């Protein structure tokens, strides 16, 4: 009998792991956005001295890992596992970025939900006694993601009004068994949820039902109510998806209006920066969490946060074959202290 599994999809930790440190490195556009103060480093240009976008993304991963280890005062050989992934085919940003680290590695793909996926699994490894120090991280890069999922930038094609802007950046969280806090208390793992949206320029709408489902399930499984949290924050629904998610929750009798936000909406200045519907990509929720949210928790401005990273699980092939877009969302419940 799995004593730490509660309800349908939720895990409660006996020895809640702590998030000892976080690190975030972002691109120049994100560095002009609304959260620019909260990132550790803003790269001067998207290539960052490399000769391809993909190499630049791997460098983001590599440098973010060393930053988080430096901030947590740990060395590579004290880390039992790195859990991470990105948006590129076969997760090459992580594979190449972590090639020289000498740390055991689990590569993950949850599209833009990967940050919450890696933190979920990392927490289970620590609470289960399989590791003391785990790094959970993801990255995305606007230019490599455009080539992967849409068109190479060289084609110069126009963007649709509902499309989102893939965040250039990498975020990492160092999870430990130390009792320092902030703690990861619960994890609610999402199901694949496909409502038949097939427009790749409208991924927010495709992911919103998954986010709403995971949030509702989290409350049902734990018996908690929305006012338990200071903030419930989704990954990258963008403006369009955020509204759909709020509407879906309202229809189920949950009103989150003033304690709900979305990393994709938060990261850019929606007025001055022409990002259409907002930010997206695994780097979006990762850098907003590792930069802004973690710092707000350490300052005490946020005591309990439900971090719900959302992913659109399509590929360029499934899009060409006119498949609809399956969505997923994983929730991680983070607490400043254990009271």
């Amino acid at each position, binding site marked *: 009998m799995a004593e730490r599994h509660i309800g349908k999809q939720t895990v409660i930790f006996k020895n809640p792991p702590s998030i000892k440190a976080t690190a975030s490195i972002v691109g120049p556009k994100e560095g002009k956005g609304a959260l620019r103060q909260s990132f550790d480093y803003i790269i001067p240009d998207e290539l960052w001295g490399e000769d391809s*976008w993909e190499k630049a993304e791997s460098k983001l991963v590599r440098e973010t890992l060393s930053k988080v280890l430096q901030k947590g005062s740990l060395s590579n050989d004290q880390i039992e596992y790195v859990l991470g992934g990105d948006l590129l085919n076969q997760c090459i940003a992580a594979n190449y970025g972590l090639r020289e680290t000498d740390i055991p590695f689990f590569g993950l793909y949850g599209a833009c939900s990967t940050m919450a996926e890696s933190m979920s699994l990392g927490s289970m490894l620590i609470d289960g006694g399989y590791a003391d120090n785990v790094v959970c991280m993801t990255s995305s890069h*606007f230019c490599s993601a455009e080539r992967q999922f849409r068109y190479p*930038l060289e084609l110069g094609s*126009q963007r*649709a009004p509902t499309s989102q802007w893939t965040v250039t950046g990498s975020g990492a969280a160092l999870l430990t068994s130390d009792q320092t806090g902030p703690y990861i208390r619960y994890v609610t793992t999402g199901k694949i949820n496909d409502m038949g949206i097939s*427009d790749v320029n409208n991924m927010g709408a495709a992911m919103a039902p998954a986010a709403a489902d995971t949030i509702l399930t989290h409350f049902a499984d734990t018996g908690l109510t929305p006012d338990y949290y200071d903030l419930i924050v989704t990954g990258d629904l963008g403006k369009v998806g955020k509204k759909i998610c709020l509407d879906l929750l309202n229809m189920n009798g949950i009103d989150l209006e003033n304690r709900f936000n979305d990393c994709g909406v938060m990261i850019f200045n929606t007025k001055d920066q022409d990002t259409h519907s907002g930010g997206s990509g695994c780097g979006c929720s990762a850098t907003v969490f590792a930069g802004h949210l973690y710092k707000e928790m350490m300052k005490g401005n946020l005591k309990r946060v439900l971090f719900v990273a959302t992913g659109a699980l399509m590929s360029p092939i499934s899009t060409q074959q006119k498949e609809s877009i399956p969505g997923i969302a994983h929730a991680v419940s983070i607490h400043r202290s254990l009271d």
Partner: protein
Amino acid sequence: MSYINAFLVGGIICAIGQVLIDKTKLTPARILVVFVVAGVLLTAFGVYQKLVDFAGAGATVPLTGFGYTLAKGAFREVEQTGLMGALTGGFKAAAAGLGAAIFFGYIMSVVSKPKAKR
């Protein structure tokens, strides 16, 4: 006057493309194909030639003008060499444009570096 005509007709053609991007779910690649095919059909029915006479480069420079070139080339070649010209004429007429696009595209890719959108 011919500048104004070119400006208006070219602008309207491009505005149609913008409306298609904003209001439909057509991908950019499909819109390009729609424009070329529209240029071919309008030329075949004799409409596009009138537009070219009226607006000059305003009608030949947008992508519909490429369809116009293909169709016109096919017609001319059929008159000169017979029915096989329907297959060869379009390519012959467009050869200079395509060759230039490949040649200069290659040169530009060698001398320049890609940059991110801002």
